[in-house]
């Protein structure tokens, strides 16, 4: 599953030559993580409390 989390490590205000300096975590990625964490906090409140039972009980008949 690795691979789809590719992120740009260069910001607009950086000089092209700055690429040589390794950046431990890209700021854009950090900002994205913070945004996702905020979303997850919201979702925790509404997610089925017994996920296993909910998933097991989600049984459908086939359609078209």
């Amino acid at each position, binding site marked *: *599953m690795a*691979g*789809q*989390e*590719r*992120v*740009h490590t260069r910001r607009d205000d950086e000089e092209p030559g700055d690429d040589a300096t390794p950046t431990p975590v890209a700021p854009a990625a950090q900002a*994205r*993580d913070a*945004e*996702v*964490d*905020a*979303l*997850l906090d*919201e*979702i925790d409140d*509404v*997610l*089925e409390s017994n*996920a*296993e039972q*909910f*998933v*097991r*009980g*989600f*049984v*459908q*008949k*086939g*359609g*078209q």
Partner: protein
Amino acid sequence: MTVRRVMGIETEYGILQPGRPMANPMLLSSHVVAVHAAAREGARAKARWDYDDEDPLHDARGFRLQRAAAHPSLLTDDPDRPAPSGDGPQELERPAVEEYEDPGAANVILTNGARLYVDHAHPEYSSPEVTNPLDAVRWDRAGEQVMLASVRTLMSSPALPDVTLYKNNVDGKGATYGTHENYLVDRAVPFGDLAARLIPFFVSRQVFTGAGRVGLGQRGEHAGFQLSQRADYVEAEIGLETTLRRPLVNTRDEPHADPARWRRLHVIVGDATMLEVATYLRLGTASLVLWLIERAVAEGGAGGALGAIDRLTLRDPVQATRLVSHDLTLTTRLELADGRYLTALEIQRTYLDAVRSALAHVGDPLDDQTSDVLDRWESLLDRLAVDPASCAREVEWLAKLRLLEGMRRRDHLAWDHPRLAAVDLQWSDLRPERGLYHRLVAAGAVELLVTPQEVDDAVVHPPQDTRAYFRGEAVARYGAEISAASWDSVVFDVPGAATLQRVPMRDPLRGTHAHVGALLAASPDAATLLAALGG
């Protein structure tokens, strides 16, 4: 040239009775239809579906499947056997005995021109015919509101079971149910050419049309995440079936329109999408590719822009469908019949370039929606190639994956953890207070294309620029005097008339507001309308 063409979306919703996994889904589905406001008003519930012009066993390749040889779930044109899983009025004999209405074949024709009914074991909303992808989004979202209204009514009725509905396509245990796109296509295009030129498009478009799915394999037998809900259920390249051996290109040739001029392309490989941009681009890009194919035929030959498309034939399209869906990096190369290997993004880029090149050749100015679809398509292909995460506001699988990866990182979950499967399912719960997609909307994390007011209007009113206008307005104005209706007919039962009167609508672009708006406004009752139509 334009993205405009007659199109529509049918959606079978997943259905549950909370806490009762063994509840009968056909019964639950019929409750969903029966509690709809239109069905509760006795008069409109009277309107049956008019099956006279239905022919689900007619194959676009030019033959008919023998009814006796058909799998029973394909028999959708006979109400006594519910599938188990511009001219003047015509006079019709009044039935001698009242026709038997099977309560399991619940069916409502809505004032917005849509059909709400039970298909197999799911409630289905078939949108009215629209002429452009943005309207397709509006009337598709209206369908969610129609379904949600039934959920609310059932929840508040102590005598009836509670029901929750999901706009998805898989249960994770092997069952799948469909979201079908329909496009009106020029009959002059030979079906074989149409199929051949569409297959690489359908295989590769998953990169921006997929709704995302937790689990790999039809029964989710392997842990993981994939782009598409439907990919693992595609088992054939071309075929008539929709309930088994599902094909990439479905050959049902039931145009619901003049068959000499039109065919209806019935696309069964798409995912139900909550994200408006995903729905918009799924229909918009398909419409453009169909234009390209129609144009080549009209101009007498492939040549030019289409040459590149004809070289995209895949060695194994069914396997390629899975490969694309299972590759979150979007870098897997698919083997082509000519020995080349291309990624799904490169195949999509070839279609985009071909459409752009053909447009430049024609040279007409583009309407706003066509330009918008082209620009968004190009932008997504550019960004998916370098930074897929940046597309999470527009592409559903990426919006879903973003939440799932966040949860995996925060809580250290493996892909087989049930909380991740629960996120996938609850994603499309139609209730805004429970559906995870709706939490993203509330947080401003997805892009919207239509306003809540536009969706509310579309729940009640039909599109103005197709025959859905006549159908919807007729139901709204003369519902008590309509005995049946279908995509291409409305049957009136006027008290005192000697016969029923059937108004055929073989042209989807007639019966519009411009065409019959004044006539309807001047007709206080059906008898006046019919006299004017017959005049």
